[in-house]
């Protein structure tokens, strides 16, 4: 890899993140009702993936690191998902 190529791609990734941040703020002025949170989470997850893949070099890591990086996402779904399902499916409060 030539020296400046690596730095240039980092700056390009940063520009992409800036663009996505602008989209985050811009899209918030529209009201999509119940879809507001999912849309915000979708853009945030896109940004988070870009940070993890390129700034944190996950793209170049081995399978073991991928398991360590993605397994907590599954745990988060369990934690948040089941807590929410539990709270809103109780017959007796």
């Amino acid at each position: 890899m030539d020296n400046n190529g690596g730095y240039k791609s980092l700056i390009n990734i940063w520009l992409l993140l800036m663009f996505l941040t602008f989209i985050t703020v811009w899209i918030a002025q529209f009201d999509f009702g119940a879809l507001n949170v999912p849309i915000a989470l979708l853009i945030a997850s896109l940004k988070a993936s870009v940070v993890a893949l390129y700034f944190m070099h996950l793209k170049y890591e081995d399978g073991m690191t991928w398991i360590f990086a993605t397994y907590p996402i599954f745990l988060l779904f369990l934690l948040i998902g089941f807590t929410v399902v539990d709270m809103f499916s109780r017959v007796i409060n």
Partner: protein
Amino acid sequence: MGLYSITTKILKSIAYPSELVPSIEEDDGHHHFDPVTEHEGAKLGMWLFLATELLLFGGLFAAYAIYRAKYPEMFMLGSSSLDVVLGSVNTVILIFSSLTVAVAVKAIQENRIQLVKVMLWVTIICAAIFAVNKYFEYTYKFGKGIYPGTDIFYSIYFAATGIHMLHVFIGMAVLGVLLRKVYQNKYSKDNFTAIEIGGLYWHLVDLIWIYLFPLLYLVG
């Protein structure tokens, strides 16, 4: 093999794990394994630590999800009282500081020590600006009589941004120690593990804020 020798072997392997692994010839007193294994192991350990950090914030996100669904008006009102401009500025600052850390990690692998110093300084300064902005936000809220106990939205707001702020301070301390060691010429292209995993920690601070910003400031 008798029970005694098996037991001593197990105890020894726990007490002196490095003796089971072929060590490198020139022992400089810092490495327990060969450098590549140590580098990969340290990185994997950091990712595991980041996983626990994610779950720490996961509890707060679960609380957010439940109370937002229960009291949408409260969250609407609370969210609109937050300063979107200041929040956006802080987002831009944190993402920029993520870039500078990423550049520092790349620069140390090419032995460009001067560039590493500049990038780490910029990162720490960005973190400080972020903290100052947050200080103004908090004092403005306190001035209006809004405290963590005002309502559930502000409880979650202060808890989430407060714990995040704590991570910013710890990140500043970590980067400060790294910077000091860079000045002491402790790192080079053959020894940059500490800078890389310190950088991973700083990226996590950015990752958490990427979610906190829209959920608290924008989605109302």
